Every structure is written in structure tokens, then in C-alpha cells.
């Protein structure tokens, strides 16, 4: 009997550990600069807007819009063989940063640019929850 291999598990880089610790508690938290007050993603230890190293991880709204998206038809990894066709989207949060993610709760044919979405958490295991998004109100 063939078995679908497990999907890749995120392996947090040192600078993104707080992101994944928050996600485990089903909170979306991003680095925010204490000097210029802007958020950024993916996490790094200097603000890409002003190069300040003075930052903290803060919770964000979890709301945003689909900036763009693609639909995978080809199976690049056997772990996703059962998933195709599936959507990978770039979501722009209300706070500004853009995140790569999946869109859940909607057929791939219904996803549109500018569609309002909100974060949901997909528990990979007891250590890792993966932020994903769904259309607002679904």
C-alpha cells in the first residue's frame, strides 16, 4: 500500500522562532520596528525600512487581501499529490507585509486578487501551527 509522505515541516530559522512560537498559540505576530513603527516579513533582526535593530514581535490583525495567487496543478513533491489543484497566495496584511500562504475554505476557481481574507491556523503537530488564510466570513 502506497503512503503519501508527510508535507514539509517548517524548520524555524533562529530569527523567526518568535513567529512560530506565536503561531503555536494561534496568534499571528510579526516583527515591528520600535523606531519607525513599521512591520515586516519574513522575520530578520534589522528593520528593512530603517535598519534599526530595535524591534519586538507584535500581534497583527490577521486580516488582509489576496495580492496575487497561483494554482499548482503539477505535483512538485509527492506529499502534495492529493492536494492538486491547490492555491498558493500572497496575502497583503492590513499592516503592510505580504505573506505566502494557502487559501482554505474556497475552491481554487473562486480565489481572486483583492479578495478579503483572514488568518486561520493549521496544526501540523503539537509544536508547529501553520498560518493559512480563508475568505472573510466563510
Amino acid at each position, binding site marked *: 500500500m502506497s503512503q503519501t509522505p508527510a*508535507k*514539509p*515541516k*517548517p*524548520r*524555524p*530559522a533562529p530569527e*523567526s522562532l518568535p513567529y*512560530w512560537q506565536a503561531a503555536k498559540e494561534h496568534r499571528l505576530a510579526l516583527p515591528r520596528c520600535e523606531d519607525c513603527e513599521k512591520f515586516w516579513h*519574513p522575520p530578520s533582526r534589522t528593520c*528593512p525600512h530603517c535598519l534599526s535593530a530595535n524591534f519586538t514581535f507584535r500581534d497583527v490583525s490577521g486580516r488582509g487581501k489576496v*495580492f*496575487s*495567487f*497561483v*494554482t*499548482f*496543478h*503539477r*505535483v*512538485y*513533491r*509527492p*506529499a*502534495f499529490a492529493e*492536494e492538486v*489543484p*491547490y492555491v*498558493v497566495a*500572497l496575502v497583503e496584511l492590513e499592516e503592510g507585509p*505580504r*505573506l*505566502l*500562504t*494557502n487559501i482554505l475554505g474556497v475552491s481554487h476557481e473562486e480565489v*481572486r*486578487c*483583492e479578495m478579503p481574507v483572514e488568518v486561520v491556523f493549521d496544526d*501540523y503537530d503539537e509544536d508547529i501551527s*501553520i498560518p*493559512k488564510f480563508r475568505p472573510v466570513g466563510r
Partner: protein
Amino acid sequence: MNAFNIEPSRELRDTCAIVGTATSRLGKVPGTSSLDLMVEAIRNALDDAGLKASDVDGVLCRGPDDSYSHHQLVAERLGVNARFSTTLTNGGASQIMSVALAVMAIRFGMANTIVCGFARDTWSRTHANEEVRVRNETRPEAMLAREFGPEYGYYGATAAHAFGATRHMHLYGTTRDHFGEIAVAFREHALRNPDAQMKKPLTIEDYHAGRLIVAPFGIYDCSLRSDAAGAVIVTSAARAKDLRQPPVLIKGFGTHNNTRGWFADDNMVVTAAKQAGEAAYRMAGLGPQDIDTAQIYDCFTYMVLTQLEDYGFCKKGEGGPFVASGALRLGGALPCNTSGGQLSESHCEGMLQIVEGVRQMRHIYPEHRQVRDAEVALISGHGGNQVCHSTLILGRA
């Protein structure tokens, strides 16, 4: 302007020329390596120029990303101690950068005759047998990105570029028919090129019937996996006059890198071709209206469409109607990728675009392949993580 308060590039206009060019065998070349193919292309280019390897004192060559210090390995096989030698790593933007760097090196006396080239053996690496294909798909997780991609099933350059295509379609009403016309036009050009990898005609119906890879891209939106190498030989315009071929002048070049990221700002719909092109036009003293043929980096159909806009051949957002007019066809308003491009000739990370630009400027082709009365060619290179760009403008002496 720069710290010296001058615009140095203008001084470099027409100071150097491409005096030899050639390719290796293209397409599926089992039993060779990228280094074999690189040396094959260089040997052919030296023959074309009427030069010997011992005339070369500069090597700016690049190979597959895992080939360390490719230029050293190439020079070793050429039997050359090079005064000036390096490998650039801006992906598909590297090859034009190499030509630009060659001009600067020659201008400042660091070398006299520089070979620029790129080689890859991608078909052999991915298609030679089933074992190779499976190894690529089951690459250990430790070799993937750690986070923010693989967990979402996000892989590969096709998806990255497809994000731009979706956004462009959303903003401007661009359609897959527009992308399809690019694939069909370049295939039609490839059928006129006996060296091209693709030999079968492609209709717009075939395009739409092709299987989807990462929508909106289907199989015919994607460039080929090829074994291929190309080379050009650059020297001073003064020295070029004494050589075998009519010199093709390097009139302008420019680079720009949207290194804030492909996903940042509007970079996926307004590429670095905009600033790279403006710099190249300024150096050449020319504009889009002066370009007789364009050889555009066509890793994916959409990338051609957006670059045509960014280079000013039409307005932003009007790339779809522009290509639908038949402009890109031989005989059209802007014959583009006249050897078939990476979509249908062979994918050599932009190197074959340079080779074809040189050949068009030499007027060597029979009537059905030659852009009539072509005096100026624009060539583009795009790569890295979708953000690096370089532009080259060539002209007849």
C-alpha cells in the same frame, strides 16, 4: 550621475564590439557536460572571429549554479592564463552583465580580448533517465527552504513568475490568449531555425490544450530544459576592424535589480527592465522607437509581455494588445526572439539572445529569418530571484 558627477557609460558607447559568436550543439546533447558545451561554443566563436585561444586574455563565463568558479575551469580547458577572469551570479541577468563588464575591463586596460559565455546541461540533468527525475522530486527536506514556502507546497520558478502573471491579468485584463500568442510566435520562429530544440508547429489551440503546470501557466508558457552553450568575443572597436567578421558595436548597456524582492512593491508587474532599459537607452543615445529587433529573456511567456511594456515598446498594461497585434512576428512591428527564444530554441539563460542579436546585426540570415534592414537590437537578461535585470543594445558598425 555618480560620485564623479559624470555619466561614464556614454563614454563607453561604441568603444567595443562583438567580433565572434557561436553556440554549442543545442537541445538534447546526452553524454556531454556543461563544461564540454562551453568549450565547444567558445571554440566555434573563436573560429567565427578568426582568433586563437591564445588571443584571449579575459574569461567571463558562467555555468550551472552548482559549478564553482566555472570561469577557472573553462580557462583551464582553453589553455589560457587570463588577465581578467570571473563568474557573475545574477542568474539570467549575468550574461549581459558579463558583456558590460568586458567593455569596462577593456576600456580600462585590464584585458584586450574577452570571451563571455554561459553553458548548462539541464536537459541531461533532468530528463536523461527516470532515476534523475525521481531524485529531483524526492530531494531531502533539508535541501528545501526552511520555512515560508515548502510547507505551503510552494516550489519553483514557474510559480514565482506565475504570481506576476496573475497580478498583471487582474490589473490590466491580460489573458492567456496573449501569453499564447507569445508562445506561438516564438515557435513559428524556431521552425525557421534548424538548430532549435522544438521542431513541431504550435497553434493557439495546442497552447490552450497544454496541461497546466502552475496556473495561469501551462506547459507552453514555460521555457525549455536544454543542454546548451553560447559565447561571444568582445574586443575594442579599433581592434575589431582588423578581424574577420563585420564588428557589431556595443552601443549601450544598463542594469537594475529590484532587490527589495519580487513580492515587494509592484515589482512583479513593473520589472527592473524599466531602469536597466532607461540606462541602456541613455548610454546608446537611443529610445524604444530606434529598436529594430528585440531578443527578450523569455523564461516564461508573461515575462516577455511585461518587459515589452517596461522597455517602452507599449504602455504599461497594453502588452496584451501589443503582442496580439502580431508585433513580435518576423515581419511584425518588433520582431522578437527571432531564433525561437528560450521557449522554443533552447534555454541558455539569455546567452542565446545575445548570439541571435549579434547575428541579426550581421545580416547573415536568409530572407525568411532576417529582420529586414535591422540596424539596432535590444537584448534583455532577467534572473536571480526574479529581480536582477540587464539590458544590452547592439548596432551595426
